């Protein structure tokens, strides 16, 4: 008796069908294999640790080989003590705090402008034709190019710095929104309409959630651009009224011709950028992708 015959026997038709379906469902779904947390954390940690150790080792070797004079290339130990000096004087905490605050505020403002702008470009054809290419093009313009103009407009003020951040990050975020919307399968739109979603309701329940993967990618890139623009602005716009930021810290090292200080500044900028990426954006992106089954759980 075949699988298909078995359901037609006797009075238990409904039960047979139910059992048949349950069997198919069980055969067709695969239980996810789970790894222990500790193991996962370890497998994520050791490769970058090894890379870091190797990097520092190579650096030390190059330093010892003497290809560059010590005032041009500091040893890892020199940079470490410069960092400790920064930390103990309180400058490091102040600079990190100031720069992060500016970065976060500038990013939030870019988000508030870039998101609706992206929606407009994606959904209104004349707007897309008019400014779509401009917004994409702005992404390739290094935002440091805006610093002189911003200083001439706003003076050496926070406004100039925020201006540079906005010009750097808004295009990324808007473009992320546009590509997120462009990648939505047309079928979702039809399903939304069949279910009765129109206009703003459709935007809220279908369009925006469907655009999330592209949008989150845009946010991530937007943050990278914010941070970069901020450092460029801080490095150039140096004034006592602005308070100490990481860029200024770096510039101070240049003025004092203290290469250890310069390296300490560069590393701090890098580490803060990576930390924000790892602690804020990577988890959001992972979550969005995992929910949609777009992420291998290995």
């Amino acid at each position, binding site marked *: 008796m075949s699988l298909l015959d078995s359901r037609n026997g006797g009075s238990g038709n409904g039960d047979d069908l139910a059992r048949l379906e349950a069997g198919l469902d069980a055969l067709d779904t695969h239980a996810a294999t789970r790894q222990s947390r500790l193991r996962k954390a370890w497998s994520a940690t050791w490769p970058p640790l090894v890379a870091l150790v190797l990097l520092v080792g190579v650096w030390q070797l190059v330093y010892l080989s003497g290809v560059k004079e010590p005032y041009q290339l500091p040893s890892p130990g020199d940079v470490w003590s410069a960092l400790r000096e920064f930390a103990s004087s309180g400058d490091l905490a102040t600079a990190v705090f100031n720069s992060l605050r500016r970065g976060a505020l500038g990013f939030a403002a870019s988000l508030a402008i870039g998101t609706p702008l992206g929606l407009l470009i994606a959904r209104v054809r004349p707007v897309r034709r008019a400014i779509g290419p401009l917004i994409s093009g702005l992404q390739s313009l290094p935002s440091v190019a805006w610093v002189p103009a911003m200083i001439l407009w706003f003076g050496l003020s926070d406004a100039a710095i925020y201006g540079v951040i906005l010009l750097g990050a808004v295009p990324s975020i808007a473009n992320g929104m546009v590509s997120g919307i462009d990648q939505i399968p047309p079928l979702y739109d039809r*399903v939304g309409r069949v279910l009765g979603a129109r206009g703003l309701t459709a935007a809220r329940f279908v369009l925006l959630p469907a655009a999330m993967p592209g949008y989150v990618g845009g946010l991530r890139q937007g943050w990278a651009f914010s941070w970069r623009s901020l450092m460029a602005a801080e490095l150039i716009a140096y004034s006592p009224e602005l308070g100490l930021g990481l860029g200024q810290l770096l510039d101070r090292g240049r003025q004092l011709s203290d290469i250890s200080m310069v390296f300490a500044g560069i590393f701090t900028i890098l580490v803060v950028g990576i930390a924000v990426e790892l602690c804020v954006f990577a988890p959001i992106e992972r979550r969005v992708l995992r929910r949609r089954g777009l992420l291998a759980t290995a």
Partner: protein
Amino acid sequence: MTVLEETAPATAAAASLSGVTKRFGSGPNVLEDVTLDVAPGEFLCLLGASGCGKSTLLSLLAGLDAPTAGTIEIPGGRPALMFQEPALFPWLTASQNIELALRLRGAKSKKARQERAAELLDLVRLRDAGAKRVHELSGGMRQRVAMARALAQDSHVLLMDEPFAALDAITRDVLHEELVRLRLSQQLTVVFVTHNVREAVRLGDRVALLSSRPGRVVKEYDVNIGQPRRIESPEVAALSVAITEDLRSEIRRHGGQS
């Protein structure tokens, strides 16, 4: 079984098309003068080769598009529509997909929506799958969630656009049975589009054969075979052979001579 050349006019049709013609822009007619009445509780299968405008016809019935000429009436309000792909939203769980359909047709209370979604999942025998994400479900399970979502629209007319075409044969066979069961228990009127003759005869009370380019109703067949039917039964096979013959001669007309 009998073969009808003409539709008997139904009293108070659940859906009726009269003289419906559709073309896109200045192109040729995709559908031409289609007149069909679907009786309440009837299962009508629309059958045709490529280019017969089956999907266009469903879009018109679903109100996603407007006919160029003719009228479409669906007294019971907007019909539910199922696609070849389940088209569930991947950012929602199975249950949330159904809840969204309930919400969009105006169910205000979240608790009521959740309860109704659980009932509907139970109806398609997926009681325990409510919290699952779409990618965690098999193709057949997704299509059943899509069915539950369509039922959530609380429409008496269900339009189906080759909903089982992408499934394997065993799953398809099970879902045929499921659909027949649901259609009876929920008193649904179903318009089911397919290019699979056996599927049409397995499921339908009536099969309408459409010509291609332009799509026109060329012939209708009453399927007087009792349910439960089996796709491999001799009665289904016999009618399928007759319809396939007509379908082939319809297709041959496009091969050069006419």
